[in-house]
């Protein structure tokens, strides 16, 4: 029983580690925080293996856990420091600033950061995690229709703020950091 549980968890860990790490890296201001989010997310998952859905749904469920963990971090639960040092070191270079378009990205980034948290998360789940409405509904624990409405509003607000700042909407996509 325990062996089966462990094997299931190890398989889930292998399949989702990069996704959860990516989720955390894209949202945390420093690698230490990202490493903590990853560690805590999987620790919770291990304790709640009975609640993890099967198949692809597991990843979306994990995003939901990571989101809660991240929210706790952001609420200032100062309980880490010097933890998760190795993982943080491995991903530290990912935090080097992009060389190209840094000025424009800075403006867009600032506008994005100033959006309401729910808008940021919705746009991120689409643009960074590549999720559709149904999958986002799983992550957020709400209906697909609610996601549709909130996403529409988030896009609208973001577009308005970019237009107000004079950012061109039609620049080519450059997902990820510059290579």
């Amino acid at each position, binding site marked *: 029983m325990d062996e089966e*549980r462990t094997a299931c968890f190890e398989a889930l860990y292998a399949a989702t580690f*990069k996704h959860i790490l*990516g989720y955390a890296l894209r949202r945390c201001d420093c690698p230490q925080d990202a490493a903590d989010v990853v560690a805590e997310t*999987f620790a919770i998952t291990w304790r709640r293996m009975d609640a993890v859905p099967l198949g692809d749904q597991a990843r979306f469920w994990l995003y939901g856990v990571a989101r809660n963990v991240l929210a706790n971090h952001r609420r200032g639960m100062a309980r880490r420091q010097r933890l998760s040092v190795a993982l943080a*070191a491995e991903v530290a270079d990912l935090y080097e600033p992009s060389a190209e378009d840094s000025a424009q990205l800075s403006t867009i980034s600032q506008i994005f950061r100033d959006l309401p948290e729910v808008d940021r998360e919705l746009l991120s789940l689409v643009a960074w995690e590549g999720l559709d409405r149904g999958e986002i509904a799983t992550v957020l624990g709400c209906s697909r229709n609610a996601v549709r409405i909130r996403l529409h509003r988030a896009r609208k607000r973001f577009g308005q703020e970019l237009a107000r700042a004079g950012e061109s909407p039609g620049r080519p996509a450059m997902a990820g950091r510059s290579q």
Partner: protein
Amino acid sequence: MMDARNAERQVARLARVRDEELNGLNSGTAARTLLASIVADQVHPCDPQPRRGLAGWQPRRLVLAAAAVIAMTVAGVVGLSLLQDGMGNATSYANSAIEVTRERDFFVARIKDPLADRDKYVEAFRAVGKDVRIELVPVSPRLVGQRLQASGGSGQMSSELVSSGPNPADCELKPASCTMVIRISAETTGTVRYTLGRAAQPGEAYWDPDIDAGMPPAPHEISGGSGR
């Protein structure tokens, strides 16, 4: 007004990393050690039904458990207080140097690489919740596999050489054809240190307890035995 696709393009540009760039990281040392530490955290089958949200979660203990092992991969040393609070009782752990498995009342360690960095041995024992420091020192053939020194903590320990291959080998004559097996009582507590003999490399001087740092062994410990 920007359309939806362009909104997401702009957001996508802000991603500092894509998942594809993280391929393989799950098999790195830190990720594997984190995994080992998480599954080492005992889950009690009598726990109530899965809790909603994070209200019932014990963050401190889990964070310590995860962090202790991760930090260990860098520093090799973690305070005992972290271990006692955060480490559980994983039943097995293996790396390139050692394999540790729980067998009834003992943790049985099989040395896969006697010349490995001793931190690898520490890592494995920590993953199963024990603070055991193994040092292998070059000795004459008759002392290979024998315990030479012990200090700290409490608990039983024994060691032996067993044939590595499918065919029996005389380990006293050909210690290189044998694997060192160390049994450490599951009740072992505290930080314990064991020095054991390994086969010397060609030209390598034998270990001399009077020269090397550490507690000098009692004469009978070297001549008589190891608990084998």
